């Protein structure tokens, strides 16, 4: 290119303005996507209702655990199915490449999307906790509610990390969607039995330390701060480790383009 200045200097956009523009666009997309909204609220509420009315629901660990399981499922659905699908689709369409040629630092593109996902998870959690008060008669004191929402943020890191790893390792949209659904079994469904010996103690131990089990334990611990135990600390530590490993893999191998 020419060494001579070819026009008056152009000002650099502010980071706050870039983030505002991205967040506004991502929020609009999120709110306009009926499937994403349905995926956000309906399944965890259905699971909560199902567990509370099922004859053997109590064997999974009781009302608090049922709420934690519903929250775990909700968080995992948003992250593993919703987030990965939108990232894989936009990458295939070239949306990211278009954003990357603007002065927006690349990290802002992902931070905006992740922030929206966490916001969705918090909104889902508030709705599930409100429903839990009605369905399961589970009401918490304000500290427990705050701690639970904090635990939701930690839990979101686990499953968003899983989602990031999926879109980092797999390029094709269809394969991302298929593997996302398949990964539900070991990553999330296993966690349903983290507090149950229905299938024996060995299975319970495996389930407890699966990503879903660690998250469910952390959430149920946060809902009962007075009963916070060494197991809850281990669940927190496991969640942090899962987040770091999955996110590390996802960031290391993520490609902005499929071409």
């Amino acid at each position, binding site marked *: 290119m020419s060494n001579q200045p070819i026009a008056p200097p152009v000002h650099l956009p502010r980071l706050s303005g*870039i983030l505002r*523009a991205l967040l506004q666009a991502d929020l609009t997309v999120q709110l306009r996507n009926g499937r994403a909204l349905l995926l956000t609220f309906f399944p965890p509420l259905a699971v909560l209702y199902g567990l509370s009315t099922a004859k053997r629901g109590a064997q999974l660990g009781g009302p608090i655990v049922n709420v934690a399981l519903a929250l775990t499922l909700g968080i995992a659905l948003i992250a593993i199915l919703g987030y990965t699908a939108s990232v894989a689709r936009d990458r295939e369409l*070239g949306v990211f490449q278009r954003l990357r040629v603007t002065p927006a630092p690349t990290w802002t593109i992902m931070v905006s999307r992740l922030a929206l996902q966490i916001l969705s998870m918090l909104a889902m959690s508030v709705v599930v906790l409100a429903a839990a008060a009605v369905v399961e008669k589970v009401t918490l004191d304000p500290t427990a509610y705050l701690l639970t929402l904090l635990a939701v943020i930690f839990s979101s890191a686990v499953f968003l990390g899983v989602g990031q790893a999926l879109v980092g390792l797999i390029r094709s949209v269809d394969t991302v969607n298929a593997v996302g659904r398949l990964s539900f079994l070991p990553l999330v469904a296993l966690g349903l039995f983290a507090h149950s010996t229905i299938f024996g103690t060995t299975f319970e131990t495996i389930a407890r330390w699966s990503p879903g089990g660690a998250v469910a334990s952390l959430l149920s611990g946060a809902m009962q701060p007075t009963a916070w135990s060494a197991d809850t600390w281990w669940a927190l530590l496991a969640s942090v480790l899962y987040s770091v490993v999955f996110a590390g893999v996802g960031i290391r191998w993520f490609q902005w383009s499929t071409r």
Partner: protein
Amino acid sequence: MSLEINEGEIFGLLGPNGAGKTTTLSAVEGLVRSDSGSIRIGDIDARANPIAAKARMGVQLQSTSFQSDLTIREIVRLYAGLYGVPLARAAIDELLADVHLGEEASKRFGQLSGGQQKRVSLLIATIHSPPLVLLDEPTAGLDPQARRQLWDRIERLRDIGRSILLTTHSMEEAQAVCHRVAIIDRGKLLTVDTPAGLIEKHKDDPRVRRVAHGQVTLEDVFIGLTGSELRD
């Protein structure tokens, strides 16, 4: 490859498929990182300061896509925000009306025709009045009317002092709008001059004479220098 684009110049990059046109543009845009060499936008080193460089260039990618759930108005607002040019709704509508898309403001990008999509892309590429505009095959797939309209818009950008680097497969386009043209192949610069200068320079080249049918054209020069074999 060494290229210099002057202020107010439309510079065309010609080459067969796989020649490296899009890769060259991608390196300037910061989408691919070059192993060596330098890219300067005015006094900005694009490799050392990519954000500042990107603020000084407007880009139209070969296959542009925007968020499918956003309307055209929302897309323009997003990109205006990313370039630090906050625009009110009325200002956005005015810009869209200027490119004859006033009535399409509430439509999604995918609902527009090819020509309309290209106009949106060009509007977004120039929304921050960048000194350098990069256009990757801007008229590919357009009908003659839409192509002429886009040429007019590109020429208007040149008239207000913008420098434009475009890639094209169309010799007609290169001759009609480009001040200078570079022919590249396999990542190497083969020749660069004005369209008329290229014909004059290469008209006696045996490779060009062999493919010419009568008077030598820019296309004869292009095929003569890059070969007749089909490229994927």
